């Protein structure tokens, strides 16, 4: 089991979790943060306390909305400071669903790759 943390702009993280739950039911071990509501330092502090909670899984995947954005900077700062974290940007619903359905089967590094490729696979132009 890998824990999930979403960091996005505006209300996107909470909305994505809600959207994911309409498809898969209640999602455990997941948190959503908005860089609009919280400072980068506060988000990093909260991630620090989440991953140190004894109930929380050993590994954590952080999914962010925009590479180069403050969510990306917050996630990379958390990864630098803490252990057993991977970061993937470009979160969309396909990626969240991939994460939730495969988090029990794959180890962290492989899961990060899978979530990324599933996200890309879900982007298509109808011909």
């Amino acid at each position: 089991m890998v824990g999930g943390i979403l960091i996005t702009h505006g209300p996107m993280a909470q909305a994505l979790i809600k959207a994911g739950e309409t498809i898969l039911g209640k999602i455990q071990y997941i948190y959503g943060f908005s860089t609009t509501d919280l400072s980068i330092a506060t988000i990093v502090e909260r991630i620090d306390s989440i991953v140190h909670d004894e109930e929380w899984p050993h590994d954590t995947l952080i999914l962010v909305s925009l590479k180069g954005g403050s969510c990306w900077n917050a996630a990379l700062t958390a990864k630098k400071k803490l252990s057993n974290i991977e970061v993937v940007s470009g979160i969309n619903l396909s990626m969240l669903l991939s994460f939730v359905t495969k988090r029990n089967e794959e180890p962290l590094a492989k899961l990060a790759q899978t979530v990324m490729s599933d996200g890309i696979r879900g982007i298509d132009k109808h011909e």
Partner: protein
Amino acid sequence: MPLELCRIDDRLIHGQVIVGWGNYLKPDRIILCNDAVAQEDWQREMFESSGDMVSFKLDISIFTQGETLSFFKQDEFEKEKIILIVESPREICELVNEGAPIGRVNVGGMHYKSGKVQIAPYIFVDDEDIKYFKMIIEKDIKLEGQDVPTAKKIDITELVYLI
């Protein structure tokens, strides 16, 4: 050419800067002037990676204050369209005192921290910020609040003297 944009933003390079202002101004270079970031390899890499988010050629330079001032004297500075990013009003004063060619300052984001008061939706200040804002104003440098290119500008000069 004069600096295209000189911006105070305590989040340094992030979405508003790279995607918002970057695509709007299409600069040749973004200079992040920050001594602490310039000395940490992982932070340099993190901010440099934001360059992947635009589809035009863009250099991202992470400079110390000294390196920024030297760059202003080089030929590239005359030829390029540049966005300069600093963390706080203090750094603007320090750069200007050393001769940096800054005539206008965009205040893009000074977020809430304990002890700071809000003067605009995205601008929180303490006594030190006010002191440096006043020093900037006294140097006849225009101070404008504007988080993203499409937003209405806020006249900071007026707000600073109201506090």
